[in-house]
């Protein structure tokens, strides 16, 4: 559902709203398989730098990505609210550790927002920005995120 609003291009999307540190992020619901409490992570030797390790999700081995490192953020100390979002994109399923999951919300996402470009954050992994009440929610671009994780792997191989 697209609307023209001034010079902004707005899209209405349903996203899972979560936090890392003080920042608010969103991931499209279509890409979220489930949300679980943190499980023990097993480190995998020789794995790409942004892979924290693997977890056992009911018998399947799922890699967990260091999302905080990729986004240049810091997870806060364990506050009892931390969760792992199991997300999938095409054939890849990954776990993303987050500080808390707030809920599922509808957002009008602006994909050309100037704030996004001005903001002092890595924009590469963000596909848009939305406003929820007075909060800004940054929409994660899972595709480019996973691509970078994979590229890193190849670099290490060479």
């Amino acid at each position, binding site marked *: 559902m697209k609307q023209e609003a001034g010079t902004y291009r707005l899209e209405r999307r349903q996203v899972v709203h979560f936090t890392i540190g003080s920042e608010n992020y969103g991931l499209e619901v279509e890409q979220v398989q489930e949300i679980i409490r943190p499980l*023990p992570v097993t480190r995998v*030797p020789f794995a790409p730098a942004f892979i924290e390790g*693997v*977890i056992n999700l009911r018998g399947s*081995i*799922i*890699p967990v990505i260091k999302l905080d490192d990729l986004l240049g953020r810091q997870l806060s100390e364990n506050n009892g609210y931390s969760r792992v979002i199991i997300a999938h994109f095409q054939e890849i399923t990954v776990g993303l550790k987050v500080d808390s999951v707030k809920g599922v919300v509808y957002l009008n996402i602006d994909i050309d927002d100037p704030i996004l470009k001005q903001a002092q954050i890595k924009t590469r992994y963000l596909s848009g920005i939305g406003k929820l009440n007075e909060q800004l929610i940054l929409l994660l671009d899972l595709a480019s995120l996973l691509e970078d994780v994979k590229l890193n*792997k190849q670099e290490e191989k060479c």
Partner: protein
Amino acid sequence: MDVSKYTDIFVAESQEHLDNLNKNLLLLEKNPDNKSVLNEIFRSAHTLKGMAATMGLERMAELTHEMETVLTLLKEGKIAVKQDIIDLLLSCLDDLNAMIRGFVNEGKEPSIAQGLIDALRKLSEGGSDSSQEQTKSSDLEFNEYELSVLKASKESNYKSYHIIIELAEGTVMKSARAFMVFRCLEDFGQIIKCIPPVQDLEEEKFDNSFEIFLITMDDAEKIATNLNNISEVRVASITEVNIDKSLSAVSAAKNNNKDDSKVENSIISSKALHLKTVRVDIDRLDDMMNLVGELVINKTRLEQIASGYRMSELEEAIEQMGRLTTDLQSLVMKVRMVPIRQVFDRFPRMVRDISHSLQKNVELVIEGEQTELDRTVIDEIGEPLVHLIRNALDHGIEPPDERVAVDKPKTALLRLAARQEGNNVIIEVEDDGRGMDIDEIRKQAINKGFIDPREMEHLDDKAVLNIIFEQGFSTNNTVNDISGRGIGMDVVKSKIESLNGTIDIETEKGKGTKVIINLPLTLAIIQALLVKVGEEQYAIPLHSIDETTFLIPEQIKMVQNHEVFLLRDMVLPLIRCSRLLEVPTADKKNSEEFVVVVHKGAQRLGLVVDELVGQQEIVIKPLGNLLAGIPGIAGATILGNGQVATILDVNSLF
């Protein structure tokens, strides 16, 4: 009718029939008089024809039809089984194969068979002049069931008649007339056989006459009168069947076939096998395997929980469940097992063709084709074996005159054998050819720059033999279309290693070469040793472990800045797992460390670990798309406590 959804079944089944045809044609070549093999061939060809027609593959149906015609002539003895006929039929199989492949890949059949169809037609026309006249009498053959009925009826004073019915020219409802004849005859007695079969009669697939065998108490005249009362029907002849003659004919044929009884048995048993099998999608088997894997993990978990409670009732129940799980697991493994016959079956033909084209006399001996391997292994093992057999035929086996010159039998022996040894399957490819010349390999290896001449002096023969597994190495100076391109052995080796197997060569100059492949029975569940490095647990596949021992600091020596460990008379390069795997150690220097001695081929090295946890059956799980292909890690497994442990890929450490 939309038949596309049947394509998979069609391809699988026709492949089976083609394999069958291939095998039996080669058998027929060896025993031209064996009727049962011929019958089996005929049946397969006939089925193929039917299947092709159903799928709308007209070319294929036409070709198989012509094959069938020739086979009928062979069956009736109108033409003799000769080399050129076998050749022709075999090339038909090749074309059929190509047609099926074309059909799968492009959705329609390629039209390539005209030459063969013409050749078959020529053959059948040459032999069929007399066939039509003879058809009537030649079909007086009964199968065993029919004979036993005939015999029993004779003993209880019934008479058996052979009745030939003719329908008037231009009869419109031939099947209806036939039906009326049957109705009429059923009043008199029992019909035991009719030619053509009832089904063909119903579908009006006959000319104007058909034959019936009837068992009855009444006499011929009465039957004839009754039949002639049906309009448009005429009894052409009605004769009493001489059962004794048929019986003796059959038993004579049986005696004839006595020598071939082995062959026959194998055909009968393979047929029985067909009837008792169910086709299952391989994906479903994989799913089943996964679920059983889960069950095994949960069983281990329960055992661990129970051990903390000391409740004998609980323990008993869990023990019982453990037994069931183990049974279930071995059953699922067995379901996935396929006899290696599937792979071996294509080699007689290949060996025949290649040895013909090289003008060498080779006898292929196959042993242990009933040995079973996991489906995944079977799928992969064919290609390396093809390489090895080609190598043996091309490089190993000498031309006949050369063999005679060195007092060897003119016909060379190529042995392909499989057998199970514990949890492994051994496959051997052995020839009695010229063997490998170790000195020549040394020379070539130096000439082609594979190895430094000074280094070469230190290598023993076994190590030198391993050079032939290097990429691009070949001692054959001429390249031909069979082998010698210098690809092959390295491909063979990497393939075998990807299946967690090993490959070894034994050779003696002038005597022959033997390649020994050692494969695990299955890839999904393995025995592994669990070790601890720092706080992390790792699994090392048991099949690559030789032994474990304490690390005694006095036995560590430095060689070129590398640690080696002296164990009896061995000098083992040491790899410290904590450093290799970059384990964040808590740095509490343990007084005790262990060495796990692992091997790859003849090479050995020692892995230093902090703790040996124990031997355990583990289910190998893939790491998923994101982590696939990390060198050094073969996968992961889930331990009894639900934790994940990574499996070390020992082969990549060398």
